[in-house]
C-alpha cells in the first residue's frame, strides 16, 4: 500500500510492513484523546463554578474532536488494508462489528471495542478525583500532547500531520489553562496546596508510561517515522518543572527528579487499571444496547 490514497484523499505513510503499526499508533492517539475527554466530561454539571464547568467541558469537546479525526483515519486505513494486513491488527477490531457486514467506521472503533483493545495511556483513565487531580492530569497530558503533536506536524504521513497541526492550537490552550490552575492551587491556600500535592503523589507513577514507546511505536521509529516519545521527555519535564516552581510544588521524593522509582505501564498495550471497565460500560452502553443507533 505504498503511497496509497485513503478516503480523505491524503497520502499515507506506509512502507509495506509499516501499515499495521501505523494503524495501532493512530488508535493509541485516538484512545488517549477519547478516554481523557470522557473523564473530563464527567465534570459537566458538576464543575466548581459555572465558568470552570464550561471550561473543562470545552476541553472535553476538543479532545473528542481530536479522537474523531484519529478514528476516522484509523478506519480509513483499515478499510484499505489487504487481507494480510487486516489479520495483523484484527485483535484490535471489535467483535460486534464483524456481524455488521459493512466497512468499519469511527463509531465502531470508539464504542464497540473491549477493554484490552484500547491503547490509551493509563493516566487518562484514572478517576477524575477532585479538581486538583483533574487539572494536574490535564497539565501532564496536554503538555505531553503539545510536544507529541509538534513532532507529528512534521512527519511525512499527511493525514496525521494535518490532524496534529489542527489540534495543537487547542492543546496550546489546554496547557495554558491547566498551568494557571496548577499555579493557582499550588500557590494558593494550605488546603489547595495539600490537595495538589496529594494529586501529584497519586498521578506521578503514571507519568512514566508517556515516554516509553509501545511495540508499534518502536516499529515506526525503526522505519524513520519521525516521532519518538523518548525524545520529548526532557522538554516535558522542563515545562512541568517551570509550572511547579511557580506553584511552589515539589516533585515526589524518592529517585530524585524522576520521583517514582518505578512507573505504572501497560495501557498502550491494552492492559488497563480497574477503573477502565466502568468507564467503558458507561461510555459504550448505548451503542452496545442499540447497535448502530443515531441521533
Amino acid at each position, binding site marked *: 500500500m505504498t503511497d496509497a490514497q485513503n478516503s480523505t484523499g491524503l497520502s499515507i505513510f506506509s512502507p509495506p510492513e509499516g501499515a499495521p503499526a501505523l494503524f495501532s499508533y493512530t488508535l493509541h492517539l485516538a484512545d488517549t484523546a477519547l478516554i481523557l475527554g470522557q473523564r473530563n466530561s464527567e465534570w459537566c454539571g458538576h464543575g466548581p463554578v*459555572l*465558568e470552570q464547568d464550561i471550561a473543562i467541558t470545552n476541553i472535553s469537546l476538543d479532545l473528542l474532536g481530536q479522537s474523531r479525526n484519529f478514528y476516522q483515519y484509523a478506519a480509513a486505513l483499515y478499510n484499505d488494508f489487504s487481507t494480510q494486513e487486516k489479520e495483523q491488527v484484527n485483535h484490535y477490531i471489535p467483535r460486534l462489528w464483524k456481524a455488521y457486514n459493512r466497512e468499519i467506521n469511527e463509531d465502531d472503533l470508539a464504542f464497540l471495542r473491549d477493554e484490552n483493545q484500547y491503547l490509551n495511556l493509563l493516566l487518562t483513565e484514572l478517576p477524575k478525583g477532585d479538581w*486538583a487531580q*483533574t487539572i494536574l492530569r490535564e497539565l501532564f497530558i496536554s503538555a505531553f500532547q503539545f510536544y507529541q503533536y509538534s513532532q507529528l506536524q512534521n512527519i511525512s504521513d499527511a493525514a496525521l500531520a494535518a490532524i496534529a497541526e489542527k489540534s495543537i492550537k487547542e492543546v496550546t490552550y489546554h496547557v495554558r489553562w491547566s498551568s494557571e490552575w496548577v499555579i*493557582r492551587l499550588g500557590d494558593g491556600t494550605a488546603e489547595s496546596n495539600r490537595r495538589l500535592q496529594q494529586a501529584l503523589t497519586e498521578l506521578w507513577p503514571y507519568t512514566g508510561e508517556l515516554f516509553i514507546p509501545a511495540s508499534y511505536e518502536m516499529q515506526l521509529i525503526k522505519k524513520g517515522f519521525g516521532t519518538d516519545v523518548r525524545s520529548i521527555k526532557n522538554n516535558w519535564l522542563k515545562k512541568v518543572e517551570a509550572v511547579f516552581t511557580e506553584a511552589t510544588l515539589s516533585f515526589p521524593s524518592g529517585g530524585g527528579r524522576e520521583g517514582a522509582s518505578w512507573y505504572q505501564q501497560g495501557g498502550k498495550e491494552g492492559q488497563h487499571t480497574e477503573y477502565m471497565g466502568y468507564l467503558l460500560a458507561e461510555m459504550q452502553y448505548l451503542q452496545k444496547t442499540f447497535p448502530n443507533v443515531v441521533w
Partner: protein
Amino acid sequence: MNCTIIKYYYGDIPDQQSGSSISSRPGGGGEGDSSSWPLWEVFIRSKQGLDHKHVGSLHAADAAMAIENARDVYTRRQEGVSIWVVESKYIHASNPDEAESFYEPANDKVYRHPTFYDLPDEVKHM
C-alpha cells in the same frame, strides 16, 4: 428516631472531596463559595467589528482567569477576536431615576440631527 439519608446522584461527590473549596484562595475574596469571586463585565470585538461590545458578565478570581473564562463562555462559537474584561465594581452607571432630566430634553431637538442639508451628488459614502 432521626436518621439522615444522603442520596448522591451519579458524579456527585461530597463537598469535602469535591473541588468546591478551591474558591477560598487569594484573590477570591475569602469565605468559601464561588459567589465571593468578584463579578466581571465582558466586552468582545467581533471579526468584522471595530469596537468591543458588552456581551455579559461572569465570576472570576482575577483578570487572567476572567479573560480565560470569557474565552470559554463567550467565544465558543467564534464570536470574537479580542476580549476586554473589567471588574463590575469599576463600572459607573447613570441613574435610571434621572432618565427624565438626562434624556428627554433631547427629544424635541431634531435640529441636532444632520438631516437638514442637501447633499451634493458628488459626495459619496454618506
